[in-house]
């Protein structure tokens, strides 16, 4: 195919001059000035080498500064951190091991999705953090959470023995697998926030009612369950992860069940990608997928008069490719309307809770113009939705706080899909918090 060219300058008007002066400015050029060595090898690459020398840090050296990562990095939108900038700062001598930048990445995986060089921040950041943790360089907030998780098995620092207390007084039975004394169809991995946080408990109680409604043969571990460790691993506490995984695998391997049902996408991620190589292989299913497969049995009767938008959790969506199950469930809510935020599915915006971000609010506040959760809530409000549906237990408290701090109180309600389903099934007692 030939392109039609419409020349702006006729060929016979082109002049060749040895020297050209325009408006008293000498604009003469040397014929080969484009071929001279550019000064790109003058940097001290010592700091970059420290990162690329780490097991997992190698790909930092592959960055060729194309900056595709910048517009998709959720942190760059509210601050100066961005994956490309890390490479550049290392060239300029940044000590990433002690810099705040080290802790800003939420391991949301959107940079890796677009990176033509496969610079993998999901490997790089945990590797550098691991070295920093071993050197004792840990932000105070995170230190507290590591210590609590090591001691109590949950990042909230709650009494480990009270992990099943949320089931007390519930109108449906939630049996402990240790007391069932037989194989169950479904072992429900409840996770920390669903077991301890007031709004997490709301969602857990809702899910218990929905499972009961479906007649699912299920049980929980209660006090035997400890934090899955995934976020600790991304935050660099690899030893803590190993300790938790060893315990959890020993417990899980002592019981018989067909499906390991997870509430938390981070736990789902750990069971899919980290536990198998340590002797823990399970048929793990996120609760949205589990419920989607039983959609026909749900039989929703109550009208949900809401306009709903949905936030993709990074560890369910980008990390593990599940975008449809939650949307199918929302779509099946009778009478409801669904609207997408402009950043959705593969390009979903991060809530800020991943990679240790859940516990680094102070550090984020020092380095960002707003929380990621606030940015996301503003996007949700823009859609005109009155309900923000979530399917990750990190998000309810993050987004509810953000609704208040962005002065959107009363405009947007944050609800777990389990809460919406229990209402649509007529199972809800309407009490929350």
């Amino acid at each position, binding site marked *: 195919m030939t392109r039609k060219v419409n020349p702006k300058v006729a060929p016979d008007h082109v002049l060749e001059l040895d020297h050209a002066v325009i408006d008293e400015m000498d604009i003469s050029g040397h014929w080969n000035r484009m071929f001279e060595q550019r000064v790109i090898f003058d940097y001290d690459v010592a700091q970059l080498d420290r990162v690329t020398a780490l097991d997992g840090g190698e790909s930092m050296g592959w960055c060729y500064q194309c900056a595709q990562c910048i517009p998709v990095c959720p942190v760059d939108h509210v601050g100066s951190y961005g994956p490309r900038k890390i490479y550049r700062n290392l060239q300029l001598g940044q000590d990433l091991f002690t810099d705040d930048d080290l802790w800003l990445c939420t391991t949301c995986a959107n940079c890796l999705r677009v990176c033509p060089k496969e610079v993998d921040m999901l490997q790089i950041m945990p590797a550098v953090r691991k070295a920093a*943790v*071993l050197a*004792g360089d*840990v932000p*105070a907030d995170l*230190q507290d959470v*590591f*210590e609590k998780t*090591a*001691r*109590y098995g949950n990042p909230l*620092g*709650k*009494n480990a*023995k009270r992990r099943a207390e949320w089931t007390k007084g519930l109108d449906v039975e939630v049996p402990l697998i240790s007391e069932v004394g037989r194989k169950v169809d479904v072992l429900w991995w409840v996770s920390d926030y669903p077991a301890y946080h007031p709004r997490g408990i709301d969602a857990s109680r809702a899910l218990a009612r929905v499972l009961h409604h479906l007649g699912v043969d299920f049980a929980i571990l209660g006090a035997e369950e400890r934090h899955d460790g995934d976020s600790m691993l991304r935050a660099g*506490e*690899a*030893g*803590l992860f*190993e*300790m938790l995984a060893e315990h959890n695998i020993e417990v899980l391997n002592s019981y018989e069940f067909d499906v390991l049902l997870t509430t938390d996408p981070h736990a789902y991620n750990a069971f899919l990608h980290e536990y198998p190589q340590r002797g823990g292989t399970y048929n793990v299913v996120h609760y949205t997928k589990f419920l989607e497969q039983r959609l026909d049995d749900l039989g929703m009767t109550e009208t949900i008069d809401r306009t709903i938008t949905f936030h993709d959790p990074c560890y369910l969506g980008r990390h593990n490719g599940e975008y449809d199950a939650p949307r199918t469930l929302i779509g099946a809510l009778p009478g409801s309307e669904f609207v997408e935020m402009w950043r959705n599915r593969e390009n979903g915006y991060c809530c800020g809770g991943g990679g240790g971000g859940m516990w680094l609010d102070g550090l984020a506040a020092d380095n960002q113009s707003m929380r990621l959760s606030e940015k996301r809530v503003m996007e949700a409000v823009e859609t005109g939705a009155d309900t923000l549906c979530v399917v990750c237990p990190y998000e309810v408290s993050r987004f509810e706080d953000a609704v208040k701090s962005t002065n959107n109180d009363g405009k947007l309600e944050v609800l777990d899909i389990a809460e919406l389903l229990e209402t649509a099934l007529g199972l809800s007692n309407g009490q929350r918090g």
Partner: protein
Amino acid sequence: MDIAVILRTVPDPVEELELNDDETDLDRDYLGFVLNEFDDHALEEALLLKEAGGGSVTAYAIGTTDEVEQILYTAVAKGADAAVKLGDDVGALDAHAQAEVLAAALGERSHELILCGVQASDEIDGQVAMLLSAKLDLPHVSVVVGVEPAGDGLSVTKEYWGGITATYDVSLPAVLGVQAAQQAPRYVAVSRIRQAQEAGALSEAPFVPPTGSSGITITAMRIPESGTGAEMISGDEEAAADRIVELLQAAGMGGGA
């Protein structure tokens, strides 16, 4: 400087605290125990002194429980050169009995400085360090918030009430009750603690059963009843301030506005 640090486990308040059957003590059978917060500061101060001026740090703890071993392994992982368990399943010892056990164990050894937490969250009487110094006949300063090497001895800052501090020249050896280290106690990675554990970096010293005690007998212990009558003050700053002044005056505090 050759430094000894005394560590101690205290009941973990995250657990529900329950009384024993005759209501004279906590029911210790079902309690979890954690490192006493002030002892963590004593350890941090010891490690900072070692890092600044060389020497060694040895951590001591009375008891044989897993939690006692855990705090000693953690001390080694943080940088202590040795950890010594004064082993016997002794249950709860009062300050006098602890000081006696520690004096027997430490008297033989030639530490130049012994650091204790200024008090522990279970007894809160702050006696161990001073009783230990008396038994060993060594100088003592308590409520210490700063330790600097000065000549052959130390320059030690002690905190008094109302924000007043005093600085003492202390000759060595000495015993200090530490209120706060120069920086928050450091983090140590779980993998480092496990390394220390796997290396078995723990020795045991003979435990000499104490003969003395404080002479105090606890006759009854009660769980505090939660009170009522908290008032949430609403309104703007002016209104809230007025209400606070009103309440203070009603309680007999402060003169006329």
